[in-house]
């Protein structure tokens, strides 16, 4: 099993590195602002001692007022894991920077989130629906989705 990293300390460290990037942090996870996501991702991957080189999954949650995009990162070198989250308050046009440039494995999962939850990922190389077909109306995993 991987050991969860000390999130409070890591949050302080991120705050020092990118001023104003932290929304909140608990002893389980760190919530960061959406505009910092790709920079933080790169930092977490490349900084010696952290080296989160493996993206376990990326998923999204609909909390009705806002969306949360959740990244589960693993460092194979340090046997450590981290839950990184980002908030998306704009329901009309939710946008989060893509992390495909950092972890290739995010590609299909970000497309899945776009398909079912309707969150757009900026700078994604090929952002289009993956399960549903072109022309499907709405995003079925949103809480306010109504099935015709």
């Amino acid at each position: 099993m991987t050991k969860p990293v000390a999130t409070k300390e890591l949050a302080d460290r991120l705050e020092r590195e990118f001023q104003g990037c932290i929304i909140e942090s608990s002893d389980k996870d760190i919530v960061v602002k959406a505009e910092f996501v790709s920079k933080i991702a790169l930092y977490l991957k490349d900084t010696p001692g952290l080296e989160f080189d493996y993206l376990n999954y990326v998923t999204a949650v609909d909390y009705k007022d806002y969306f949360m995009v959740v990244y589960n990162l693993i460092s194979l070198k340090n046997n450590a894991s981290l839950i990184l989250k980002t908030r998306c308050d704009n329901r009309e046009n939710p946008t989060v920077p893509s992390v495909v440039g950092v972890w290739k494995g995010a590609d299909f999962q970000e497309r899945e989130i776009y398909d079912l939850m309707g969150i757009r990922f900026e700078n994604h190389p090929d952002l289009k629906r993956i399960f549903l077909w072109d022309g499907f109306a709405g995003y079925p995993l949103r809480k306010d989705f109504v099935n015709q």
Partner: protein
Amino acid sequence: MGIDGFDIPNLDRDEGADIESMRKACTLAVPDPVGWQEEDISRNVLVTTVDAVINWSRRASLWPVNFGLACCAFEMIATASSRFDISRFGMEILRPSPRQADLMIVSGTLTWKMAPALKRIYSQMAEPKWVIAMGACAISGGLFHRSYSVVHGVNLIVPVDVYIPGCPPRPEALLNGIQKLYEKIQKQSIAQK
């Protein structure tokens, strides 16, 4: 963007348009084939004798096409393998190609995205052909009936000869369904097909 000359965005758009039009068109069930129940033809002695031979040869050597879509497919696979052994009933292997098959066993959840493929494979099969809808999903959408992506029964897309209820039906149930199909084929007449 293109791969080997295919225009990917256009492919996606065409597929979407196909599915949407199918979704609008397929709202009523295709009637189940019931012509074999007609009494008149079965009184004709010459036809019935020929029928008996032809039907016997047809039913004794059905060639099923493999259309496993979800969990039910595993019961179909189990039926095909040694313990239940579908070859006792004249079906040695599930064909991967519709052109070599005359029975389609639709086992599993049919989504709208898969529906055009189902229709195409059915059209590619040679006549005479039969369809078995295996499991609650194939019959009516099953427990995914209220989902946004599931077809409410394959009989919206193709005519179905035998329905096998269950979630999933056991291999014995599938074999029973195949026996029922035999009975049905036995009553068919070349005057119809």
